[in-house]
């Protein structure tokens, strides 16, 4: 790992305007928006894997897509290997994409049904000016082998393959340009249990073989624990806790993290179950609660939680939490 900043995301925001219906009865200024990603800040060191977890609608996928410039950001900064991604335009951006790629959740819909495996994996090379067809073929064959697919599959269509094999095709496509950053958006959640492990192992193998840095987005905490070095939790568009994997799983701070960890059913009938379950639903991002967004469901909510937004604070050792509980604790220490 070098001292140079690899990826730094700062105050990233993505607000989706909400359509008011056919007749715009309210004046323009007061139109509401969904704050899908609200003031998200984190960084990833080279070679590191950051797991980004949260429940559906928390903004984790949107964060991944905004930082890869697949969705326009509302504001913020994404600094990647010496350049500001959010200010890149047109051809500049297109060329920069060689450095960062994405692995998609749906192994079915993310591969063009009209294309053969060979063409799918080769396409990024074409787009980035590898003109010689034999060279492209050689690199595609090499990459297919690396992800554990037979080169005889080149001329077959993606729909002929199972979910696990299709995800391997998707991984080959993402890696063929030799990017350094991979955003993997729920890459195994659509797969069967017995195939999931194959793909997780492959992702880890590829990480060491090609020196990759992952932003690993998932809702499955046990998968994230297995693959990540650090973990961040999002709730309603904000990161509420971020820390090293062991700190996060062994010494979680935020009450929401506690609840998440307690909710995961484990294949161990002898484990003592802590019946720490949250009441209520995730609030609508259209109308998030005042103060800490988690306070209506939080078993430890107190007075400041409902009117003041807690800020992320360093609790030592790179373990950050956004919760008023620790705010007071920390001031006491100081």
């Amino acid at each position, binding site marked *: 790992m070098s001292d140079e900043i690899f990826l730094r995301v700062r105050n990233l925001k993505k607000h989706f305007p909400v359509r008011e219906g056919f007749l715009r009865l309210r004046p323009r200024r007061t139109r509401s928006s969904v704050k899908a990603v609200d003031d998200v800040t984190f960084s990833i060191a080279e070679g590191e894997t950051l797991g980004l977890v949260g429940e559906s609608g928390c903004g984790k996928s949107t964060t991944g*897509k905004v930082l*890869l410039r*697949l969705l326009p950001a509302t504001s913020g900064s994404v600094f990647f290997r010496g350049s500001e991604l959010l200010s890149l335009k047109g051809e500049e951006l*297109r*060329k920069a*994409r*060689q450095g960062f*790629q*994405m692995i*998609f*959740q*749906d192994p079915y*819909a*993310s*591969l*063009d*049904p*009209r*294309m053969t495996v060979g063409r799918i994996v080769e*396409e*990024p090379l*074409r*787009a*980035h000016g590898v003109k010689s067809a034999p060279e492209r073929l050689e690199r595609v064959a090499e990459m297919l082998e690396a992800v554990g697919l037979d080169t005889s599959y080149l001329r077959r269509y993606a729909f002929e393959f199972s979910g696990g094999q299709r995800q391997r095709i*998707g991984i080959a*496509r993402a890696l063929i*340009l030799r990017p350094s950053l991979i955003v993997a958006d729920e890459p195994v959640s659509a797969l069967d249990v017995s195939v999931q492990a194959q793909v997780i192992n492959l992702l880890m193998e590829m990480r060491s073989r090609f020196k990759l840095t992952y932003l690993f987005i998932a809702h499955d905490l046990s998968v994230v624990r297995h693959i990540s070095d650090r973990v961040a939790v999002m709730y309603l568009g904000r990161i509420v806790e971020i820390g090293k994997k062991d700190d996060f799983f062994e010494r979680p701070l935020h009450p929401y993290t506690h609840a998440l960890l307690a909710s995961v059913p484990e294949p161990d009938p002898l484990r003592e179950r802590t019946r720490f379950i949250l009441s209520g639903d995730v609030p609508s991002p259209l109308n998030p609660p005042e103060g800490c967004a988690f306070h209506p469901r939080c078993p430890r909510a107190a007075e400041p939680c409902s009117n003041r937004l807690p800020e992320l604070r360093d609790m030592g050792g790179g373990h950050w939490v956004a919760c008023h509980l620790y705010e007071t604790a920390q001031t006491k220490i100081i």
Partner: protein
Amino acid sequence: MKLGFFLKRKVALIGFLFIGLLLAVALAAPLMARIPPQDLNPANKLSPPGGAHLFGTDNFGRDVFSRVVYGARTSLTGGSGVVLFSTVLGVLIGAVAGYFRRTEAWLMRLVDVMMAFPPLLLALVLVSILGRGMLNVIVAVGVTYLTRTVRVAYALTLKIREEPYIEAAVASGVRQFAIVTRHVIPNMLSPIIVQATFTFAFSLLDLAALDFLGLGIPPAVPSWGNMLSEGRMYLTRAPWLLIFPGAFIVMTVLSFNLAGDVLRDRLDPQLQRNIEGV
């Protein structure tokens, strides 16, 4: 596409057979028609079907069978021309309008304006500006079908552009133009082909109508529309002048519609619903 599937649908099979037969007839017209279609024989005018003249002769003594056979050539050429023109241009415009949102507003409003004209009237106006002749007629009729194809292609593009594989292509750094040509257009082809078969069927009727009105192909060229137009004066005296070209128009249009229905069934029903919603 599997042959077995078509075999199961006997009615459709008849349609496909007729289309095949028609194609063969049109290609082999000089062999099929022993009497050249332009040969005048005033001595033998308006003779009923039978004998040397299978379908009889017209008011100039021309062989109706030969003219129907050569008319198949004209009709198929005309229909193919209209399909080619409206599909190629329509897919391009629709895909561009659907994918590049900046072009969308004015392209689609232009199409809306064109759709406000009654199609045949629009074709009539265009022909009167461009003049008669095969190419001009194809363009005139093609323009009226262009708008429909544009709308279908546009609707399909709006759907396809949201597919994850398009996002994946963007993420790989594929150029926008390549995304349209390599991903968007290939993925809309099946419904577009269905649309094309219907366009073919309906354009035959329009081409015939233009001919019938005397605004299509020059009267000397044998076409089913021209034959109807000329034969209508002899409706009672020589009904075969109308029956044969008329029957061929009906059979051809019907066959293409049947073929289109089968192709439509082969497609994703959801895509189909989107097209019908246009």
